[in-house]
């Protein structure tokens, strides 16, 4: 276990030693958070953007105000899970970008697929605490199985937890990929921060 932490720590130090990847992580986390909040009100946003009653400034103001929905529409647990999921996603994309820039190829299928799975689980988990997940309830309703949500105590927030678990696994696999040299080099050259 300690070895895994060391791998992750080394990779994080290596990647975030470059401020550009800090910027990538922050920008991606903000994007993930923003989209996860806005996704709940897609129809309102589309209506406002296409309405003659809303100027562009009005629409931008509405979009900003809707971000406050994280505090009014969610339980504290779901709000925290959404923020953590967004941060984990930001870190994932920063690690993925770093790997891609260094190696000019995507990482092993295990790391890539856990990132993708984590994102899919997050999309399923997006919703408000009272109404269950928006995406999931719509999908289940369409196949007449909306009752499945009754068996999820967090009304679908479980998918955010699953997402965070998958993104954590993905961070590990990406970190491991970064620490694994493509060619045989002395350790100090592979990992100059040691």
């Amino acid at each position, binding site marked *: 276990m300690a070895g895994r932490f060391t791998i992750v720590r080394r990779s994080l130090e290596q990647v975030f030693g470059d401020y550009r990847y800090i910027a990538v992580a922050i920008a991606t986390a903000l994007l993930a958070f923003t989209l996860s909040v806005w996704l709940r*009100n897609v129809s309102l946003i589309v209506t*406002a953007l296409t309405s003659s009653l809303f100027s562009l400034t009005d629409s931008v103001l509405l979009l900003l105000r809707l971000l406050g929905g994280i505090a009014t529409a969610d339980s504290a647990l779901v709000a925290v899970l959404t923020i953590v999921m967004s941060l984990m996603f930001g870190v994932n994309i920063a690690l993925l970008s770093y790997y891609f820039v260094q190696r000019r190829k995507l990482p092993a299928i295990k790391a890539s697929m856990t990132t993708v799975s984590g994102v899919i689980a997050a999309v399923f988990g997006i919703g408000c605490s009272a109404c269950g997940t928006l995406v999931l309830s719509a999908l289940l309703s369409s196949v007449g199985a909306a009752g*499945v949500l009754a068996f999820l105590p967090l009304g679908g927030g479980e998918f955010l937890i699953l997402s965070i678990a998958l993104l954590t696994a993905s961070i590990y696999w990406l970190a491991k990929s970064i620490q694994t040299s493509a060619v045989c080099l002395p350790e100090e050259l592979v990992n100059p921060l040691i």
Partner: protein
Amino acid sequence: MQQLISEYPKDVRWVYRHFPLEQLHSKATKQAEATECAGEQGKFWEFTDKIFEVTPSNDGLDMSTLPTLAQQVGVANITQFQSCLDSGKYADHVAADVADATAAGGRGTPYSVVIAPNGEKFPVNGAQPYAAVKQIVDKALGS
């Protein structure tokens, strides 16, 4: 909603639809019927507010307390209230409201639709910040 109504007493009308999510809250449908039974005696809003105030999450309300709650908000004839509740006379009404809400695009609660004087509709999913809802209402009133 109450803040909105008090701020726009002459310009905004609040049309309420029951939207109990049976698959998430198995007691909500009967509670919705109970509000209509309280409404028979002029206490719809008082009883609705009370239900939302005292109902814990995850179906935690003891349904046997409904008559007591009705009494607390001033429903005078509890026998009539109980009889109304037992008869299920508002079951169809609540079911029609659910169908109405679903047809209007509702997939969860709370779900609101701001309808402008020109007929334009703005669907609001979840409990959004007051500033956002107020902005939508202001724009709708300007139509």
